[in-house]
């Protein structure tokens, strides 16, 4: 309180000086006792009003930069001062009362704004253009780990996912789950030998391949070494599909993996160089040089398709969430990579066959009734939510358990989950899909 009074005096000393002058003037110039008494009384009231006013201003000033629920008290103090002065200064009563009332209204609205939950938009991600070409191999590998897992040292953390989203399907260590895509442990050694020597790969003869795609683009040819194999598998996943990891029903001719340089992931060549360098270094193998890796990708990604390294745009890796719920539903499905494994009516590109078709408006009620169902859901919405955050609670036959990652509950915001549940609960077999919003 003493601080507040001190601040009020600091701000309002000219006003108090003026009041003091008026006090002296009224003593000197007062003609009769009644007039003198009246003016002294008015001065007293004026001083009281000024004190209230200045205390309010000091309080307002002191807590201006905070979301302070007591702050509107300042405005109420001013209202009180105005109404009090209005009583004793009838000539200006209308002005003072109107002013006071406006302060009261503003106090109410300010109080309301401060009472609501306080959401602050944080600082934008730092604008930094990484100079990949000037990095050492270890620096490149660190950046690669950030892209894959979202941070340095996170590669053994279950559920750690970065901008590249690789761990959603791939495992990176022996013994870790990775049934949707090959475990990448030992890839650098495997790439140049087993893979290239596999007759199905049809090295040097792309036309002889039996996969959906023969070449990354006309004339690109096939890989000649291990690094080129990695580059090709990133940029043209369906040029060669490891046995057992194709889209169900395609006889391993189609890969469920998206081309990594295209949306929704869109890694630049520089970022891919960092990713690959980490794949080598973490196994204690010398990585090819930055230029060699870039060259290997240039062989399989035509210039027009190469995403530019981000400059002004905020880095996508800044958020730990795959989707924060502000995106439209089709983007949420794409960012969460649901579309790779599931067919979702109404969502462009959602033609995955690794998991069941998501017509949950029809499926969910039946599954809840299934005697094999041991979950806790009582309605469609609860079932969908349960399936996302705890996919092993009920596994739809004939799909295997543990195929779906279990970390979506922590990788999607509440808003994003809500949107997914809302959408899927409206998808019914035989009915037109709901509108995307």
């Amino acid at each position: 309180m003493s601080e507040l009074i001190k601040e009020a005096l600091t701000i309002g000393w000219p006003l108090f000086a003026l009041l003091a002058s008026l006090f002296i003037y009224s003593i000197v110039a007062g003609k009769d006792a009644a007039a003198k008494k009246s003016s002294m009384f008015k001065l007293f009231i004026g001083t009281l009003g000024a004190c209230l006013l200045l205390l309010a201003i000091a309080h307002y000033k002191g807590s201006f930069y905070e979301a302070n629920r007591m702050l509107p008290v300042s405005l109420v103090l001013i209202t009180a001062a105005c109404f009090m002065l209005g009583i004793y200064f009838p000539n200006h009563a209308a002005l003072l009362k109107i002013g006071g009332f406006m302060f009261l209204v503003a106090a109410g609205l300010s109080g309301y704004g401060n009472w609501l939950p306080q959401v602050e938009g944080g600082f934008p991600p730092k604008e930094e253009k990484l100079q990949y070409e000037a990095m050492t191999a270890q620096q490149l590998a660190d950046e690669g780990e950030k892209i894959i897992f979202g941070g340095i040292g996170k590669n053994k953390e279950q559920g750690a996912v970065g901008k590249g989203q690789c761990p959603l399907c791939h495992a990176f260590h022996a013994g870790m789950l990775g049934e949707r895509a090959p475990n990448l442990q030992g890839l650098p050694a495997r790439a140049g030998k087993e893979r290239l020597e596999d007759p199905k790969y049809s090295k040097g003869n792309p036309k002889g391949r039996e996969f959906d795609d023969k070449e990354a683009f006309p004339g690109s040819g096939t890989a000649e070494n291990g690094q080129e194999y990695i580059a090709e598998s990133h940029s043209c996943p369906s040029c060669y599909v490891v046995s057992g990891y194709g889209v169900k029903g395609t006889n391993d001719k189609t890969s469920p993996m998206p081309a990594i340089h295209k949306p929704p992931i869109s890694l630049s060549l520089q970022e891919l160089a960092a990713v690959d360098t980490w794949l080598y270094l973490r196994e204690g193998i010398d990585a090819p040089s930055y230029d060699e890796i870039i060259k290997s990708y240039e062989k399989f990604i035509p210039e027009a398709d190469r995403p530019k390294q981000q400059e002004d745009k905020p880095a996508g890796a800044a958020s730990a969430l795959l989707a924060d719920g502000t995106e439209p539903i089709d983007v949420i499905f794409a960012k969460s990579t649901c579309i790779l494994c599931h067919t979702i009516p109404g969502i462009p590109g959602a033609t995955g066959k690794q998991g069941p078709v998501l017509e949950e408006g029809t499926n969910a009620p039946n599954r809840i009734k299934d005697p094999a169902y041991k979950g806790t859901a009582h309605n469609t919405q609860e079932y969908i939510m349960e399936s996302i955050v705890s996919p092993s609670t009920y596994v739809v036959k004939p799909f295997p358990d543990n195929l779906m990652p279990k970390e979506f509950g922590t990788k999607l915001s509440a808003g994003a989950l809500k949107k997914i549940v809302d959408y899927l609960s409206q998808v019914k077999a035989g009915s037109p899909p709901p509108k995307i919003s």
Partner: protein
Amino acid sequence: MGRVAGKKLFSIMALVAMVGLLLLPIAVSLPSLAIGADAPDAVKKEGEQKYEKGRDVYYKTEGLAIGAPAPKTVDGPKDYPRYNFESRVLLWFANQQHLYYGSFVLAVPIFCMVIEFMGVVTKDKAMAKRYDQLAYDFIKISLTAYSLTAILGGILIFTFLTLYPAFFGYLSSIFRPVMHIYALMFVAESGTLYIYYYGWDKMRDGFLKWIHLSMSVILNVIGTLLMFLANSWIGFMMSPAGVDEQGRFLGNIWHVIHTALWNPLNVHRILGNMAFGGGVVAAYAAYKFLASKTDEDRAHYDWMGYIAMALGVAFLIPLPFAGYWLMREVYAYRQQMGITLMGGLLAWLFIIQATMIGILFLSTNYYLWQALGRMRGAEKYQRYIKYLVFILCCGYLVFITPHTIVMTPAELKAMGGQQHPVLGNYGVMSAKNGGINVIITTTILSFVWYMRGNKVSTVSWSKFGNIFMGVFFACAYVNIIWLAIYGYYIPANVRVGLSVPQVATTLSCLFFMFPLNSAMMKGAKQMGAIEWGKISVRSQYALIMLATAFTWMMGLMGYIRSSVRLFWHVNEIMRDNSPWAYTHTVGFAANMISFNVLFFWVSILFVFWLGSLGMKKAPVPAKAEVPGGAPQPAAGH
């Protein structure tokens, strides 16, 4: 005779002068426009190698990148010089004050035009005189505020130049010709306004009055164009066009002006300014009413307050529809931007906006109910007001219930889900549409009651008319509420379409019931006069509430519109690298908006007070000339 001819000559000269002033900016700016528009052709002749080609980020057309790229600013004294205070807040303050005064001085001449026109066409001479005096009073208030607007504009420019030189430099390099036209238009606006104001007495009657009226049209055309030009700057900042990805100007100034959001912004701002202007004038009238010492003054200012309120509310009703259009265009331009506004970071601010809209309608209704008290014969309606209060409160509470909002995991856990188990049902759009339409329909009903307060219809079909109106309103309420309930049982994509019949129902009440009521009240028997001035003091506080709420909402919506750019000076073109490139909390924004609102009102009340000092010194005119000197029963409202 000679005097009349002289007056005519003077009027025509004034009109010609104004047309000249109107055309002057265009004539003067042609060369500067040419520099922007023709330069690419000239450059083409010299050789296209000199400039690279660029693709328009919005129109997708190709052009020569004759402008410099948007500067990549860094946090430091060069790009962001500063005092020991947040520069953004200083700019916010300067901008908001200029906007408040600017909106006011642009809106008031439109009122003057409407009221002066009403005065010219009305057959009742006494009413004509009162309307004319009212229009004159309005423009007098505006004139005092006009110079303050210009001063604040200067302060705003200096604030930009001194605190955000790199950004303002870039903006002025793009809008160079537009800024010159703007400055010249301001000169034209000033000239026209002064001729209009000082020529009032000279052109009071007959043909000259029509000339004077046409001047107000020209004044408003200039004012509106002026606002459109200023809107093009904020439109460009939100949804840039006419530049390439690097922000280089591609030579087509029309593309830069005519951005994705320019048109809806223009319409929204015109309506918003009018509603705001009505609020300010109503508050002025309320102040004068409360300060009045005579019944005559009270009568005049009561009437003035009523007219200003009615005009303000008339523009408030279409404002939400203009807002919907603006939001639709925002979504069409960048869906992400729309979601940030309505369902993301700024969603709580829209809850405040809903609260404000409710306050505006509640204040309007309260004023109308109080106004019934000055009519003899209106008692028959007053006993039903409690039911309207109940309906309005229900609609209001539903309307302000939030739905999908950003929550922390702790909040989510505490709530037990994304929605509250009970209140969550009222947060959905279906219920909200029902809520706001019930509020507007009730406001229309209050207006209808007010319009027939002291009258009894004498038309032969009055019984049928009353029953028809009653049934129409009852059906409207049933339809709105039924559709709101029905919305819970259908999918979201179908539910969205229900807002159309709901709004159509509300508008039907507005467009069918008002004319029907007017037809029924034609030649109606008056139960008693409207006793202007005999209204409760509380009603004047409702007007002040209305004005303060308008001002607050304007500040709020301006903040929302501006902060949706997040960390961009110019969306996706020029990044904000200052230390203030984050969005404040709702609480801070509310404090700042309150500060701006109070500063504006304290300053304008001071202006009103100064004006009243001047009036006291003016020679007192004859009693018949005193504005509102003879309170009269209004023939119509």
